[in-house]
């Protein structure tokens, strides 16, 4: 059984326990052993990178070093954590001087980073280590081809030399549940999460544009793999209603929720009622 260091971050457990629960259940069903990492903290987010590059390096290097010690890859369900950990590892592997400076700090905690650890998004691990065929074999009630738009998220796609993720793999994962992947013009565009603290109006505009693009392309649901993107596209539909008077009514689900349901799990098991825009219309699309 493949075993992983599970790095949960702080946003998923605080804001989207439904995503956390669905991830754990799907992983178990797929035969992936996820072990919560011991003694790790927050990744700091791009906001920390913006104001305190060195501090951001050290806190993330610490997480990487803890994982390296026990030898398993890190998996995370959050694009923000993924981006931070991946970026820090990439930088330190290419900058010996910073690697040394960071290790001088880590020594205080009895840790050392060599740079051998691998950082992965949990859904990418599903794709690569379990494989589409094995996932399909677990799908007992596929979706009926319902149209779902995928929002990948910036920090999982870019910069590509750092993230090493192919968006088509996420499409394949979604198709494995029986859904149809909707192409839409703004598929690459940001959800606006990062700018929320400094310019809320702009953040709402970006979420609005994104949802509009999905909706116009015929999407009935949206899929996300990040709590921050989830927040912007799901919860923010209420902000959009206040600002633009537009109701998109586009339910947003985390990939493991969709997969868990297609594997026959119940809506309670994936916390479907916690999705802000009611997502239960998805239930009518499963072919029993």
């Amino acid at each position: 059984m493949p075993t992983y260091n599970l790095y949960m971050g702080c946003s998923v457990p605080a804001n989207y326990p439904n995503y956390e629960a669905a991830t754990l259940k799907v992983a178990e069903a797929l035969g992936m052993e996820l072990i919560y990492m011991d003694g790790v903290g927050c990744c700091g987010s791009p906001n920390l990178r913006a104001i305190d590059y060195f501090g951001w390096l050290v806190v993330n290097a610490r997480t990487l070093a803890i994982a390296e010690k026990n030898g398993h890859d890190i998996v995370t369900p959050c694009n923000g954590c993924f981006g931070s950990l991946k970026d820090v590892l990439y930088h330190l592997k290419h900058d010996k001087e910073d690697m040394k400076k960071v290790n001088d700090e880590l020594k205080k905690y009895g840790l050392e980073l060599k740079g051998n650890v691998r950082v992965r998004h949990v859904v990418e691990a599903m794709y690569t280590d379990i494989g589409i065929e094995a996932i399909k074999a677990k799908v007992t009630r596929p979706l009926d081809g319902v149209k779902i738009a995928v929002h990948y998220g910036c920090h999982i796609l870019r910069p590509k030399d750092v993230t090493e993720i192919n968006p088509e793999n996420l499409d394949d994962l979604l198709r494995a549940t029986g859904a149809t992947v909707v192409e839409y013009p703004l598929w690459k565009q940001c959800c606006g999460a990062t700018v929320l603290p400094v310019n809320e109006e702009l953040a709402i505009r970006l979420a609005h544009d994104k949802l509009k693009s999905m909706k116009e392309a015929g999407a009935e649901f949206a899929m996300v793999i990040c709590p921050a993107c989830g927040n912007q596209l799901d919860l923010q539909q209420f902000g959009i209603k206040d600002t633009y008077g537009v109701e998109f009514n586009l339910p947003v689900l985390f990939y493991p929720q969709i997969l868990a349901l297609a594997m026959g799990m119940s809506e309670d098991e994936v916390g479907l009622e916690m999705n802000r825009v009611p997502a239960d219309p998805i239930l009518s699309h499963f072919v029993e």
Partner: protein
Amino acid sequence: MAETKDKIDPPVTLVEPIDMSRLDSSFRKEIQSMPDGNELNACFACSTCTAACPIANQWTYKPHQLIRMILLGMREEVLSSKEIWECLTCFQCQERCPQNVRVTDILFDCKNLAAEEGKVPDSIKGLAKELIEKGQLYVITADWEREDLDLEPEVPGMSTDEFREILKATRTGKIVGGE
């Protein structure tokens, strides 16, 4: 009717004339020495980055102009701009740049330089404070929701002490301490 004798207005330029005396020629080197600045000089001002940017239309300084301003040494303007803080960090500009200029990463470098001078928007300062005080950005408030889903009320293994200790000693501590 238009006559050739009509007075012609001065051409519309994208930027105000540059005051040479205020340029800081070391700014370019400063950015180049930072983590992702090596390719800075390769910029040939094609504005592809700006074409890729989803929010450049509402910016006074567009991404290609910010890069040009760095090359020219307009340190003060760049580090005081609202643009560097509004950047979504979406990496669209960086992905498209034909010269491999790491535009988004360079804007991160600019924010770090601004932060070193204490120029941090209040909302971001607020986040820094949260990080130092709570050791995380989001704290679990609804543990019953977690228990309903068979999750531990607290994240197993989560520890905030070391995180706070590290950041207190780095620039975050300085930014928050300087309140």
